[in-house]
């Protein structure tokens, strides 16, 4: 069965250009923003202006009177079709529109529908609300004990078994407390010759997908179609069906191209509001956020990480205690998963016998936080790799040498007890050392006395969220052409291309000839979501299984049709012989769920906590202007263990893209808040890196590795290059000018003030 014989079996590992490239660069790709339906109404959200308050009244009369306004709805209207209109992946804490109280500045309180989006926007400005203000809490550490309590009662969704015990808990902002114990930390610290303790903080930032969030809900006789820019169509279907009390098959979720997601478009966002508004209005409703309103929808957790380590006289880590506070904002979203599933990697890729972790998901009166490229890992690596660098310097051990003494090697168990199988921590570390010529110490010097050169590095790792399921369907038409139906969302990461390569490899066609059906829950099967770098591994397996299933069925058909020799038939010959004409299909199905064992609720131990580990590190060379605190990155080296790359070129763009994104979070980006109000909610004042901010050189290195349980030896890579960037830069700054920054972002002013404080201390001022 050779359609293009010259390509047989060379589909994997080939840098197939992105299948959707021509469509996108020629402006033909369709997005939900472009979609218009007859009779469609535009929605504009009226948002809370207070951080925490009881709603006394909402006056929508002026808005309703405005010419061109079709409807104005509040939480009370939503209740008429959804009696309990709260949603969320971990907790049912988020109302479609505010009910009784508001929890943060920007929470949706009412919605205006009009045929003209400008009419809707102007009418929304005529709505007023009165609140009885309640005390608010914004800081994650204060939230642990504050009198201000964001939610009266915790309402776990019931989806995750380890959250069930939280049901009904009152007077607390702790949405989840996660604990891990390994060995005997008390004894470990008692034996230590040196003990180091530090606190590191990260700021709240936003994903900034260039396509802002958008959903169009289209009600029909007894079904609803939801066109949405979502990373998790299957979850949207389940959650909308649950809210409406409908079976899943009456909800159809369709996702065309996405203009970036990065975790912002996960689980359920605008879909509940769009669906309720459409059903109430009996018309299609489009909710599309301007860039500015994304800042009130989902963000990345601010965090505080207190880390303490005990070291022996040879520079071996004996014990580590990690205390992490995650600022989840007003709704839990997926924050409790971040707290746990990323929380257990808090001690870093180090072989430490005695470990304790206490990780807390906290509610505060800030805009909600959820998943963002790295799922909490960059916050953790920022802390533990800055801490590692400090320890090495204080002990007078070279930072790479110190890591060599302590990293997890071979199959040694990580803090959970799961072995680090196929985890090339040492290879990543050594590759960074090699690229930076670390040992020979070839350090650049500047002729300019106002410039100082510095270099730094950091390594980190991540577990894949587990257990999760993917299903795929491969449909072979009667002419032998192949369609792949899957609910993985290609939001720019190149998954369509990689999945087509897998099908092509097995069915012996060209990747370019495989057609991908974009998510449509009526035809594409279940997938947990496109998140956490899980698709290559999980969906990759499902697609592989589906293609193998199709291939087996074709072979069976060939056999039944009397073909014996493999080389002499083409799929179209089989269909023709069986049906007497070009007719029929062969459908292959694949389902994949990895092995998993739940951690012991007492101590967090499990020997199968993740199906694979992602390892990444970054080396940075920079130059600091000692008079202004500005610094320029001369060289950024990203090294990753991603198993065997399915498509090397795409993988490389994932590495450079992820590292640039994290560079923005490290140097520039920060949501500034004043009494809970975001004061820079626009791209004019929330600055993301531009082309001139790209380091002089970015080098991406893939270490030779093979993920033995992965599809064709591959594993995920979308987040790996985010891990090391922040601490590598901070460590390089320390190397250059001797100041240690413990709070992101690393602004020129922060560097300058730290240098000044150091001079002051030195001169006794």
């Amino acid at each position, binding site marked *: 069965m050779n359609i293009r014989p010259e390509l047989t079996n060379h589909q994997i590992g080939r840098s197939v250009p992105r299948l959707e490239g021509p469509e996108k660069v020629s402006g033909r790709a369709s997005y939900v923003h472009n979609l218009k339906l007859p009779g469609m109404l535009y929605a504009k959200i009226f948002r809370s202006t207070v951080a925490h308050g009881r709603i006394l009244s909402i006056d929508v009369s002026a808005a309703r009177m405005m010419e061109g306004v079709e409807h104005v709805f509040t939480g009370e209207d939503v209740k008429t079709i959804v009696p309990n209109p709260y949603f969320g992946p971990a907790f049912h804490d988020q109302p479609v529109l505010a009910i009784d109280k508001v929890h943060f500045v920007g929470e949706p309180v009412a919605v205006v529908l009009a045929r003209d989006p400008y009419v809707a926007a102007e009418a929304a400005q005529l709505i007023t609300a009165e609140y009885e203000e309640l005390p608010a809490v914004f800081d994650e550490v204060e939230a642990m004990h504050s009198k201000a309590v964001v939610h009266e009662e915790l309402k776990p969704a019931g989806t995750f078994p380890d959250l069930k015990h939280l049901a009904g808990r009152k007077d607390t902002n702790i949405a989840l407390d996660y604990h891990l114990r390994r060995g005997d930390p008390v004894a470990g610290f008692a034996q230590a010759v040196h003990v180091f303790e530090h606190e590191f903080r990260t700021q709240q930032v936003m994903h900034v997908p260039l396509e802002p969030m958008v959903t169009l809900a289209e009600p029909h006789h007894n079904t609803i179609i939801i066109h949405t820019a979502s990373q998790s169509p299957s979850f949207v279907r389940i959650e909308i069906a649950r809210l409406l009390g409908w079976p899943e098959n009456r909800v159809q979720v369709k996702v065309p191209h996405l203009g970036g997601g990065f975790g912002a478009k996960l689980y359920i966002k605008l879909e509940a509001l769009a669906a309720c508004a459409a059903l109430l209005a009996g018309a299609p409703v489009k909710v599309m956020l301007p860039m500015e309103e994304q800042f009130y929808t989902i963000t990345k957790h601010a965090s505080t990480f207190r880390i303490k380590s005990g070291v022996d006289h040879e520079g071996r880590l004996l014990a580590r205690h990690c205390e992490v506070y995650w600022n989840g904002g007003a709704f839990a979203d997926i924050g409790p998963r971040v707290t746990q599933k990323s929380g257990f990697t808090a001690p870093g890729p180090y072989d430490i016998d005695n470990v304790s972790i206490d990780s807390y998901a906290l509610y505060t009166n800030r805009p909600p936080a959820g998943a963002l490229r790295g799922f909490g890992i960059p916050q953790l690596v920022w802390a533990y790799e800055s801490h590692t660098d400090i320890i090495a310097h204080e002990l007078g051990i070279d930072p790479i040498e110190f890591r060599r003494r302590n990293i997890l090697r071979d199959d040694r168990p990580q803090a959970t007890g799961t072995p680090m199988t196929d985890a090339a921590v040492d290879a990543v570390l050594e590759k960074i050392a090699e690229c930076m010529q670390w040992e020979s110490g070839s350090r650049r010097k500047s002729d300019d006395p106002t410039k100082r050169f510095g270099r730094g590095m950091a390594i980190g790792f991540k577990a894949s969220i587990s257990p999760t399921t993917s299903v795929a369907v491969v449909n072979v038409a009667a002419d032998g052409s192949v369609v792949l139906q899957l609910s993985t969302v290609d939001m720019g990461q190149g998954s369509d291309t990689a999945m087509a390569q897998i099908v092509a490899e097995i069915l012996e066609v060209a990747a370019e000839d495989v057609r991908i059906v974009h998510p449509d829950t009526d035809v594409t099967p279940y997938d947990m979501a496109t998140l956490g770098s899980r698709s290559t591994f999980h969906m990759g397996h499902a697609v592989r299984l589906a293609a193998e299933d199709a291939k087996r069925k074709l072979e069976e058909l060939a056999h039944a049709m009397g073909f014996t020799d493999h080389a002499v038939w083409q799929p179209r010959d089989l269909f023709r012989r069986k049906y007497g004409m070009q007719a029929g299909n062969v459908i292959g199905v694949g389902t994949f769920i990895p092995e998993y064992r739940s951690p012991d609720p007492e101590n967090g131990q499990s020997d199968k906590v993740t199906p694979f580990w992602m390892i990444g590190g970054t080396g940075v060379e920079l130059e600091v202007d000692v008079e*202004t605190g500005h610094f320029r990155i001369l060289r950024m080296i990203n090294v990753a263990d991603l198993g065997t790359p399915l498509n090397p070129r795409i993988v490389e763009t994932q590495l450079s893209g992820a590292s640039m994104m994290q560079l923005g979070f490290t140097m520039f980006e920060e949501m500034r808040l004043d009494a809970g109000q975001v004061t820079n909610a626009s791209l004019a004042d929330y600055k993301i890196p531009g082309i001139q901010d790209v380091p002089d050189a970015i080098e991406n290195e893939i270490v030779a590795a093979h993920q033995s349980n992965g599809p064709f030896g591959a594993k995920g890579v979308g987040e790996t290059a985010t891990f090391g960037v922040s601490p590598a830069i901070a460590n390089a700054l320390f190397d250059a000018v001797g100041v240690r920054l413990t709070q992101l972002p690393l602004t020129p002013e922060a560097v300058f003030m730290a240098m000044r404080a150091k001079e002051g201390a030195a001169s006794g001022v």
Partner: protein
Amino acid sequence: MRGFELVRPATLEEAIRLLDTDDPTVRPLSGGTAIMQMMKTGIFKPSRLVSLSSLAGDHSAITLDDKGFLSIGAMTTLAAVEHSQVVLQHAPLLPKVMKRLANVRVRNAATVGGALAHGDPHMDLPPVLAALDAEVIAQGPGGQRRIPVADLYAGYFETVLQRGEIIASVSVPPRNGCNSVYRKTTTRTADDWPALGVATSLGRGEGVLQHVRLFASAATERMTRLGSAEAHLRGNRPEAKLLEEAGRIAAQEVEVIDDAHGSAAYKVALVAVQVRRALHEALQQGSEQ
């Protein structure tokens, strides 16, 4: 919906007549890059926008007169200034400044008139044109007048333009052997609005500094002439120590404000450094010629 009226007068005179009103919700519209932003955020709600787009034909010329004065029509886009050979020859600093002013999309739409009239202190062109001794040609109900760019600003987002007055062009005098430098400091991304802008123009004769212009912006409530630092430099030999002192004096005299770009304490320190560096750079340019 309230909406607003958009009018497109065909002549400058008609535009002036339409703008000759006390109503602050009536304003000219050029490239729209600043005004649309204010409308989107609800800071400015116009009742009428007087689009100057129909005037572009007559007011977007770049010309050089026989005395060496460069005239740039108010409707000239920043991109046109960036790519003009005449500008490159006679005011080479201007194209250089454009490279880091906003981005290509903004420069393709934004106009010189808008860049001068907007009055946001976080703008790059005003200090540059002021240091070049440029003048604005303003046309109003009472006729035409020339306003030095150095005197154009009355306060935060406030110009001295009067009711009905439109910027028609800007006039840049010949360089006369002076060297000019603009140093833009951003504290966030490279293409950000400046946190501090320092512009200088220096002319030497007989071993001393004779012509000195020094302006700071962005860190200040409005563009500020650094008069004491200028006085300290004028008539003296440009030695390293003098430049260092000028930086320090500048930092003392300038009134720096806290904003999203940084604290006043930090930006004061930046003033001292960037003034000194700007002076050095201008002198170095001079000695290279």
